[in-house]
């Protein structure tokens, strides 16, 4: 047993990676789905075991292939990435039962197995980014997850999915290139690719070569910002989310950007922050205006969007603004708010996109004007949409409120009360775009497209309701969300120079 326990960090990535290859050999969609579900279900077990170990014994260092760092690749698990691993694997597992009907509905029979192979590959890539302690290895996983994502998006039924995928391919590749240039610069001045090793040598290197160190930060910042869709580098996201298969949208919205945020935190706080004075570097200065612009501009774009999937995609860009705002605040409450929103937003957006997937499954459209009266024909689905939407708005008693509260207190603690005001003012815009959907769904007469729609089958309904329940539940019991996030923020800030 202990032999397996020691290999858990490796297994976290290897299981879905090998699972993906086997899935690619399958022909029947249902079989591939069952296989992918089984594989996915293993990942949260491993992640929770890791979180438990880290919580009681402190960080784990795992040497891939037995090669010690900095020569070999090190997988390093501390509280921050254990938290992200749990989030990604758990949300994916909850969503998997949903996939079968939704994927079978939207993707041709002979391509379904490919889709599941790509999904598992993407999952392996995301978990890999989160677990590795090596900058170049993170790049490799970044590419694995991105390439598989392009394929998943391109499988969307709408032909515009191809363009969306191509758009993302171009921008994603630019992002990855920027990231790898940044890593290259760091390697040049420190001679290492291991995160901890770079952090240890960076202070000295910065004294000798201040400019490459700063340029490296800029490249890494821009590269990762593209992946996490920081405004105004979000252009790929709305189309990608709108035209990808419904399940892929829900999965990516809940996990992919979150992992990119993690990578950002890792590089800002565990590398630059440890070696240099992070508050003196122009990280907050750039993040503040971009985050606030995201919160307002993307939210306003969401209000004017007719396609509900695109509307939620813009909303995602806005919500990412809250997360990066929490990072920009760089104090205990603010950072807690950012990290806990990473968790809460994954649940909320997961629930919302699953609800829209169900609408797509039954009504065949997510255009707002076609959905009159859908609240009455699909009562449970739209109840889920409304509840998760309230959490998105930050109604007290829901998970979204907890994030906002920490962010507001963080802003007040930092003496930035205008920022506190901007947080509440922008969350009001969420009321507009969610409220607009509610009006159409409940107060318009039942339209033709939805007249025969009804709530989706149980396998789709349960994951959707589970995530909805979670996005309310974590507004009342916050031990696993805000409790852990607050501890992580403490560690990250405590580690700063």
């Amino acid at each position, binding site marked *: 047993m202990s032999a397996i326990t020691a290999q858990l960090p490796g297994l976290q990535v290897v299981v879905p990676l090998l699972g993906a290859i086997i899935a690619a050999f399958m022909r029947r969609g249902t079989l591939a789905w069952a296989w992918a579900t089984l594989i996915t279900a293993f990942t949260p077990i491993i992640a929770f075991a890791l979180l438990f170990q880290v919580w009681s014994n402190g960080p784990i260092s795992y040497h891939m292939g037995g090669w010690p760092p900095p020569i070999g690749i090190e997988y390093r698990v501390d509280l921050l990435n254990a938290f992200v691993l749990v989030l990604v694997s758990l949300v994916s597992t909850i969503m998997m039962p949903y996939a079968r009907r939704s994927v079978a509905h939207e993707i041709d029979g002979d391509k379904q197995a490919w889709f599941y192979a790509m999904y598992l590959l993407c999952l392996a890539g995301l978990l890999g980014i989160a677990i590795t302690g090596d900058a170049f290895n993170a790049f490799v996983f970044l590419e694995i997850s991105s390439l598989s994502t392009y394929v998943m998006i391109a499988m969307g039924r709408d032909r515009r999915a191809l363009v969306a995928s191509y758009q993302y391919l171009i921008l994603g590749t630019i992002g990855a290139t920027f990231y790898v240039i940044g890593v290259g610069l760091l390697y040049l001045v420190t001679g290492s690719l291991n995160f901890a090793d770079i952090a240890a040598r960076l202070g000295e290197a910065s004294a000798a070569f201040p400019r490459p160190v700063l340029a490296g930060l800029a490249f890494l910042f821009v590269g990762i910002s593209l992946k996490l869709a920081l405004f105004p580098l979000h252009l790929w996201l709305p189309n990608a989310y709108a035209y990808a298969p419904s399940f892929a949208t829900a999965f990516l919205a809940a996990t992919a950007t979150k992992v990119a945020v993690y990578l950002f935190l890792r590089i800002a706080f565990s590398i630059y922050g440890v070696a240099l004075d992070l508050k003196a570097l122009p990280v907050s200065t750039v993040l503040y205006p971009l985050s606030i612009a995201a919160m307002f501009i993307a939210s306003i774009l969401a209000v004017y969007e007719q396609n509900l999937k695109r509307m939620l995609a813009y909303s995602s860009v806005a919500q990412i603004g809250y997360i990066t705002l929490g990072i920009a605040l760089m104090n205990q409450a603010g950072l807690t708010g950012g990290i806990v929103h990473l968790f809460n937003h994954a649940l909320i957006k997961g629930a919302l996109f699953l609800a829209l997937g169900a609408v797509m499954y039954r009504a065949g459209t997510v255009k707002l004007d076609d959905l009159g009266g859908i609240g009455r024909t699909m009562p449970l689905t739209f109840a889920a949409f409304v509840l998760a939407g309230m959490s998105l708005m930050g109604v007290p008693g829901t998970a979204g409120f907890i994030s906002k509260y920490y962010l507001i207190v963080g802003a007040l603690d930092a003496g930035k009360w205008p920022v506190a005001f901007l947080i*509440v003012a922008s969350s009001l815009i969420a009321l507009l775009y969610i409220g607009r959907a509610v009006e159409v769904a409940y107060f318009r007469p039942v339209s033709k497209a939805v007249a025969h729609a009804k709530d989706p089958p149980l396998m789709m309904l349960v994951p959707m309701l589970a995530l909805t329940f979670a996005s309310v539940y974590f507004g009342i019991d916050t031990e696993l969300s805000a409790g852990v996030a607050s501890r992580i923020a403490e560690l990250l800030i405590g580690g700063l120079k």
Partner: protein
Amino acid sequence: MLALAPDTLIMAALTIPIIGALLIPLFHNAPNARESVTLITAGALALTVWSLLPHVLAGARPAAIDLAVVPGLNIAFQVEPLGMLFALVAATLWLVTSVYSIGYMRGNDEPRQTSFYVCFAIALWATMGIAFAKNLFTLFIFYEILTLSTYPLVAHKANAEAIRAGRIYLLILIGTSMVLLLPAIAWTWVLSGTLDFIPGGILKDKATPFALCALLALFAFGIGKAALMPLHFWLPAAMVAPTPVSALLHAVAVVKAGVFTILKVIVYTFGIETLAYAGSGGWLVYAAGFTIIAASLVALRKDNLKARLAYSTVSQLSYVILAAAILAPISAVGAAMHIAAHAVSKITLFFAAGSIYTAAHKTEISELAGIGRRMPWTMGAFTIGAISMIGLPPTAGFLGKWFMLSGAMQTGQWLPIAIIVASTLLNAAYFLPIVYTAFFEREPAAHAVGADAARDHGEAPLPIVIALTFTAAATVGLFLFPEVPLALAKLMAGV
């Protein structure tokens, strides 16, 4: 009454409406059973809340649940005298309104009655949560639930006007609470490190007079349900809702939740003495005074009965705010008394308006000539409610004004006295003509308006008449036997 432990009673008050809300949809196709569920739920709630009264009068402050959501934010409940008074008023009047609703909803063939009763029960649940909240955070949660659960009731008719009213309703109430009230709560937390309601307040020596002034402004305007001008216009807009909604929610639960919260914040968060000493509350007298007079002037010009009642509500709500802003304990007693008095009187007036609509399909005051002879019970009750609005004995409205004036005189503030006197005259000017028209003007001859069958009507359905007679009697009864609300109000103010 119910010999249960007080914390059990609190738990019961916070679960009974929710159980009702869950049971009502099960009887979607059996209206009689469905309405029985509503009545039983409302009755059980009223019984539970009344059973708490002896404990509170005896000096106990029973508490239930204390759940830390994050450090500093607790969901916790505790019954103090003001909350007790508010809960009594809301729970009792819910029972009466339920009787009334049955007559009204059936009499007018309203659609979607099941979801109507469900939202109503949730709204009452939220009201109980507001009344019994132990701290600002808990109060805030239920405050927002109350807004969200009453939104479908406002937009109930689902026509363009109702949807527009619903938008205004949500935007103003959620907007003010998120943009002003939430920062106020966070600021209070940053200043004092607690959000609990504590007699004497939690902000003594914690902030400069200027900061207190700004914080009070955030609270006064952030609590949009109190309808302080210029954030009042959601209330007249909300009048498109079915009359029982206007009666219970927009004359009792929702708006009273607003002034209740303001009163509670002034008494238990700021502390009357802290505010009076810092001199940070003076501007609120002007703001409330302006609202009282301006809303009355608007009411004078409204011909639509419900619109006139709505502006009257805006004006009357600011009495409570004014009384609190006088910052004398005795006028705080007046504020609490006025919450109860205005509740029973205004619900009577709305019941009467709904009764007229149901029986005669009339909504404008100018159409009411001679209706007093056709509907003597309705217009009799209306007259009692109107007298109470003006504030004359023997009605409940007199009591609140009496204590407000006492407080103002004790502290030598002449402006509030002038405002109250002036508005009394205005109230008379916009209520007495209605009574006069109804009883003393002649009904226009049949050919003048075109003879139609609908014109030949008597009283409204029996449940409606029962309900409005009861509340009219309560309006007088509260004047004759004010012991219970008075005792609670005095306990709150500490006089």
